[in-house]
């Protein structure tokens, strides 16, 4: 029956000359310069069960996720003509074309006999008049316990986003950050975690000690961060599930600026001793560390390339803070400025550059730039080419990448005296948004996609 419907619809479209060549299938190009958001219709999911509120909330989260990308324009439900959508029935494309919708998501929420819930959806290409297959399937059906409903919603939004943009997913993720409360001269800083859309905010440390710069492990199960516990600034490992905190290493000096290696087996860190900061890598299994830089200048904020072979870091060896790259094995590189050196400077613009974070795709380094009384978040090629500033404010600091390398999260103080807030911006520089937090917030770090 369905096949007949499809055939009929196709025939109709062909006859009326409305069908687009199949090559013109709905596809969002996220890198185009003059971008117009693609119209999407996501009616509230149908419900078989009693919890209508949950069905509605799931649809709301899917819409909110997709809309937060700036790539899609959610169609107003009051414009919808077809009211009798069903998950297993092809929609009347003409009803959706007339309201200029390119994509239509039809979803269904079910309560299962075992107490779990299941959510199904199909993504329709309205102009091509066909379902958009996801991993070869004509749709997806996900089940979970009711308390986990948000993850289902994020996974559905991820599927749709990935199918339409070709980009890897990033909604089903978490963000760890520092929650800040109290007056400026007696700030309380706590480790906090939330879903990528700001839901489920939780505090992980009680705020007795100042904690700073949390970062996720590639498994999303652990966080490494710096704490003043016991009056000593040192780096720790925090297990999210158990809440267990563990001191990392046995360094005589202050340790700070931790960040996991890409394989999660090591932590890059900075140790300061007798006024000199250098970068180390510590194997988490053997707890042995190796020194990567040995220079009288400040070397800090290491971040590893996805292939694990290089690091980017901040150094003031040239007289001001700038970004350098080096090979983890210490072998010399050919530098952008010519010549070979163990560490190559890649930033040469006016001002100071710091907080480099290597993108998950490997081609870019995100940074904080400070010049002329302003702060900027920007990106630069790892060869020092193609610097682009994405944001500007009184203070913008501390970028980190979404796991798909499309979005950058950072924190901002809009004006002098304002508390910090979390922000995100698309790699294109479009779609700057505030991420909602219950308190002032700084030092955000994005988790990998959850398993």
């Amino acid at each position, binding site marked *: 029956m369905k096949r007949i419907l499809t055939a009929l619809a196709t025939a109709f479209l062909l006859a009326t000359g409305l069908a687009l060549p199949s090559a013109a299938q709905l596809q969002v190009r996220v890198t185009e310069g003059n971008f117009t958001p693609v119209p999407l219709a996501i009616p509230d999911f149908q419900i078989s069960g009693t919890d209508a509120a949950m069905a509605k909330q799931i649809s709301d989260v899917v819409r909110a996720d997709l809309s937060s990308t700036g790539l899609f324009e959610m169609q107003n439900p009051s414009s919808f003509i077809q009211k009798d959508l069903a998950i297993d029935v092809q929609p009347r494309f003409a009803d959706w074309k007339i309201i200029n919708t390119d994509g239509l998501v039809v979803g269904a929420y079910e309560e299962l006999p075992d107490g779990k819930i299941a959510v199904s959806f199909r993504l329709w290409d309205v102009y091509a008049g066909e379902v958009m297959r996801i991993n070869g399937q004509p749709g997806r059906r996900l089940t979970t316990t009711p308390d986990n409903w948000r993850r289902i919603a994020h996974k559905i939004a991820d599927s749709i986003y990935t199918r339409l943009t070709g980009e890897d997913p990033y909604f089903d993720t978490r963000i760890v950050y520092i929650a800040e409360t109290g007056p400026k001269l007696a700030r309380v800083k706590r480790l906090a975690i939330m879903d990528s859309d700001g839901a489920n905010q939780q505090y992980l440390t009680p705020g007795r000690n100042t904690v700073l710069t949390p970062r996720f492990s590639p498994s999303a199960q652990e966080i490494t961060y710096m704490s003043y516990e016991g009056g000593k*600034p040192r780096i720790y490992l925090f297990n999210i599930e158990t809440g267990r905190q563990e001191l990392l290493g046995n360094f005589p000096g202050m340790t700070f600026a931790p960040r996991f290696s890409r394989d999660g087996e090591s932590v890059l860190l900075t140790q300061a001793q007798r*006024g000199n900061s250098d970068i180390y890598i510590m194997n988490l299994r053997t707890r042995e560390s190796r020194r990567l830089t040995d220079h009288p200048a400040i070397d800090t904020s290491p971040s590893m390339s996805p292939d694990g072979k290089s690091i980017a870091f901040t150094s003031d060896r040239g007289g001001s*803070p700038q970004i350098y790259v080096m090979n983890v094995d210490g072998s010399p590189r050919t530098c952008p400025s010519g010549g070979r050196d163990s560490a190559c400077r890649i930033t040469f613009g006016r001002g100071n550059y710091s907080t480099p974070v290597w993108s998950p795709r490997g081609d870019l380094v995100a940074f904080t730039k400070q010049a002329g009384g302003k702060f900027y978040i920007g990106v630069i090629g790892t060869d020092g080419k193609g610097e682009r500033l994405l944001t500007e404010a009184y203070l913008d600091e501390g970028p980190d990448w979404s796991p798909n390398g499309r979005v950058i999260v950072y924190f901002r103080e809009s004006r*002098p005296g304002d508390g910090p807030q979390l922000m995100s911006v698309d790699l294109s520089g479009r779609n700057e948004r505030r991420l909602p937090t219950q308190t002032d917030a*700084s030092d955000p770090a994005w988790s990998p996609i959850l398993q």
Partner: protein
Amino acid sequence: MKSSLKLTAAAAVLLSLGACASKPKPVVDTTPVEVVDTTPTVTEPVETETVAPVATGPAAGSLEDFRVNVGERVYYDLDSYRLDADDQEILKRQAAWLSSYPGVRILVAGNCDERGTREYNLALGERRASVVKDYLISLGVDPSRIDTISYGKERPIAAGSDEQSWALNRNGFTQIVSGTNS
């Protein structure tokens, strides 16, 4: 009764001054008017209060002595960890004081203003603290008496977001952790 009369008179003067002044007048202190003395009249004896002699300053060797007479902070220029002549003077006084009180241990904290990124400032603060420590050692203070810590931009002492506050927040802070009697 007499005192309340006096206060009323004072209030009247204040009010009239206020009325004469050409500048903004709403700032008249009206509280004296409300001070109507309701306590029972004159008969109660007045207790004698002893007035201590004027203090000559903090007790020698106290935390207050160090803070007031020696100086606990040196201040740095922007992005700098250099000690200028004023800073060196303060550190010489600190070293002299420390040699007078050999049981004292100190923690030198390096602090930065908010106009830098967090991790770089942690490194810079450590360098600032270390420069103070090295200078004190050069003046004969035993290194084992000095610990250092960096707070980066986490411990401002001036809440403003202006040049003056930033200048105050770029400091090396010598804190006495033990060995004094107060």
